[in-house]
C-alpha cells in the first residue's frame, strides 16, 4: 500500500470539502473493498478522509411512506431493520446473502453500491484493463471469464457488477441521495449505474468528492411479497453467478404487478424490463415465466467460459417466479 495521510470528518460539509478540494483524496468508510484495493495498488489515493463518524447510519421513515437507508448504515444493521424486513423483504435478503457476517458488520450501504468489480484482471496491475487504465485493453474478453457478464457488455469491458443489494434496489426504483461540491441532489438508481460502453472507467455519475448520504426506497406495496434468490458456486460467502430480485402481485391467476431485476450476469444491476413487459397481465404460469426469461436474455452475449450463465439466468428467473407464485402449491 502506498503511504497515505489520514483525517476524520465529523460533518458532511467538511468531508465533501476535503475530498473535492484534492484529486488525490478519497472517502474511507467500511473499507472492505477499498483497503483491499489500496493494498494491491489498484487504487492509490494519498489521503483518506474517514467518514465513519458522520451521522448517516440510520434507517428512517420518509414522509411519502418509503424508507431512507443512511449511506453509512452497516449492511448487518439494515438487514435487521424491522420495517425493511416487513415492507421490502428482498432488500433484507439481498443483504444477508452477501459477504460474511464480519464484512456485513463493516460494509456500508453507500459503499456496497460503489464497490468495485471482482474481475481478476481489474485487480491485477500487470493485466490490461480499460476500467483501471483506460485504453489499455481488456484481458477478460478472451481470458478467464467464467464469472463475467453476458448483459450490458461492450468491447471494452465485461466485468460483472458484484452487488446483491443494488439488484433489489433497481427493482424498487430507489433514489440515491448525494451531497457534493455543488450541493445536494437526488439520482434515480437507473441513472446511477452506468454501462461500460466506451468509458468503463466511469461507473457512476458522481463528481469527485460527492458523497452518497442515503438511499430512498419509494413506497411499493408489491415489495411486501418479494424475494432475492442467489445462485453461486458455494452456498454462502460467495458472489452470485446469477441472482434475481422479484416482487410480484397475482390476482385471479394473472400477474397484476411485477418488478424483476438480475444480478451476477450484467455489467450493472440489471432491471429486467423486457421480462416485466412479457409478464405484465400474463397468466402466472411456468409458460409465461419461460417466455419472459427468454425475452430478457435474448440480447445476451457470452465470451466463452461464461456461456452457461445465459441458461442459468433464464432458469433462475423461472425458478424465482415459480417460487413466488406457486408457494401454496409447493407447501
Amino acid at each position, binding site marked *: *500500500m*502506498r*503511504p*497515505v*495521510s*489520514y*483525517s*476524520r*470528518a*465529523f460533518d458532511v460539509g*467538511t468531508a465533501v470539502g476535503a475530498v473535492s478540494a484534492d484529486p488525490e483524496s478519497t472517502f*474511507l468508510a467500511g*473499507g*472492505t473493498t477499498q*483497503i*483491499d484495493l*489500496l*493494498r494491491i495498488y489498484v487504487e492509490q489515493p*494519498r*489521503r*483518506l478522509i*474517514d467518514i*465513519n*463518524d458522520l451521522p448517516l447510519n440510520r434507517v428512517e421513515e420518509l414522509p411519502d411512506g418509503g424508507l431512507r437507508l443512511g449511506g453509512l448504515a452497516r449492511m*448487518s444493521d439494515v438487514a435487521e431493520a424491522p420495517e425493511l424486513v416487513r415492507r421490502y423483504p428482498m432488500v433484507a435478503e439481498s443483504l444477508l446473502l452477501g*459477504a*460474511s*457476517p*464480519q*464484512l456485513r*458488520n*463493516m460494509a456500508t450501504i453507500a459503499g456496497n453500491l460503489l464497490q468495485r468489480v471482482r474481475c481478476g484482471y481489474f485487480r491485477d496491475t500487470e493485466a490490461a484493463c480499460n476500467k483501471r487504465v483506460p485504453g489499455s485493453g481488456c484481458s477478460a474478453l478472451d481470458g478467464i471469464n467464467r464469472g463475467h457478464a453476458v448483459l450490458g457488455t461492450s468491447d471494452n469491458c465485461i466485468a460483472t457488477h458484484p452487488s446483491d443489494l443494488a439488484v433489489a434496489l433497481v427493482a424498487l426504483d430507489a433514489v440515491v441521495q448525494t451531497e457534493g461540491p455543488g450541493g445536494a441532489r437526488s439520482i434515480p438508481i437507473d441513472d446511477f449505474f452506468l454501462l461500460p460502453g466506451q468509458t468503463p472507467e466511469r461507473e457512476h455519475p458522481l463528481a469527485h468528492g460527492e458523497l452518497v448520504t442515503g438511499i430512498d426506497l419509494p413506497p411499493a406495496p408489491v415489495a411486501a411479497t418479494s424475494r432475492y434468490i442467489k445462485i453461486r458456486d458455494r*452456498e*454462502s*460467502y460467495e458472489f452470485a453467478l446469477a441472482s434475481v430480485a422479484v416482487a410480484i402481485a397475482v390476482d385471479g391467476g394473472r400477474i397484476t404487478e411485477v418488478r424483476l431485476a438480475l444480478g451476477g450476469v450484467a455489467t450493472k444491476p440489471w432491471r429486467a424490463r423486457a421480462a416485466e413487459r412479457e409478464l405484465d397481465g400474463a397468466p402466472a404460469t411456468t409458460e409465461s415465466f419461460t417466455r419472459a426469461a427468454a425475452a430478457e436474455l435474448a440480447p445476451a452475449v457470452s465470451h466463452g467460459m461464461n456461456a452457461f450463465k445465459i441458461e442459468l439466468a433464464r432458469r433462475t428467473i423461472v425458478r424465482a417466479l415459480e417460487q413466488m407464485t406457486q408457494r401454496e402449491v409447493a407447501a
Partner: protein
Amino acid sequence: MVSFVMRGCESVKSYEALRTAPNPDHAVVRGPGEVEVRLQVNGESRTTNIEPRVSLLDALRDRLDLTGTKKGCNQGACGACTVWVDGRRVLACLTLAITCENREVTTIEGLSDGDTLHPMQQAFLDCDAFQCGYCTPGQILSAVALLTEGHAGDDTEIREWMSGNICRCAAYPHIRAAIRRVRDGGGGGDAAS
C-alpha cells in the same frame, strides 16, 4: 441496539461516550509518516507509533505483541483475523488501526478471565474443534459473537453465520459441536453432526 457483555472491557455506555465526544485533534491531517495512535485493546490503553496505512491486524501482531490474531489471506476472504471492534466481529486485515481510536478492540487474548478460559475456548478444547489451530482464534471470536447475535438456533443457521471463518482442516462439525455446547449451557453435545 444490541448490548454486549465483554470481559476486560469497559461498558458499552462508556465507549459510546468516547465515540460521541470527538477529539478535535482528530480532524487534522495525520501522516503519511508515523503518528502516535492510541488504541483501547482488551480494556487497556495502548499507544504505538505507526503510519496511517497500517492495518489493525499488523498493529496488533507487530507492534502490540498480540499475536493471537492470525494473518491468513490478508484480503478479507478467510476470517482468521476476526476481532471485535465496539463489540462487533470484524476483519482486522481490512481495518486501518488509526480508524479504531475511540473504539474498543477485543482480541482472543482478551477473552479469558486470567487463567480461566472463556466457555467457548473450553468448549473448543472439549469438542476437539481444531486441528492445526491457525483459524481458531478467529473461529472463537466469531462463535461468541454468533451467540450474542442470536444466530445459533440450529446447525443450518450456525453454518451460515460462521461462513466467514474458513477452516482448511475442515474441523467444521466439531466447531459446530462446541458452539452447540455453549449455546445449550455447557453440557452434552455430540462431537459430530
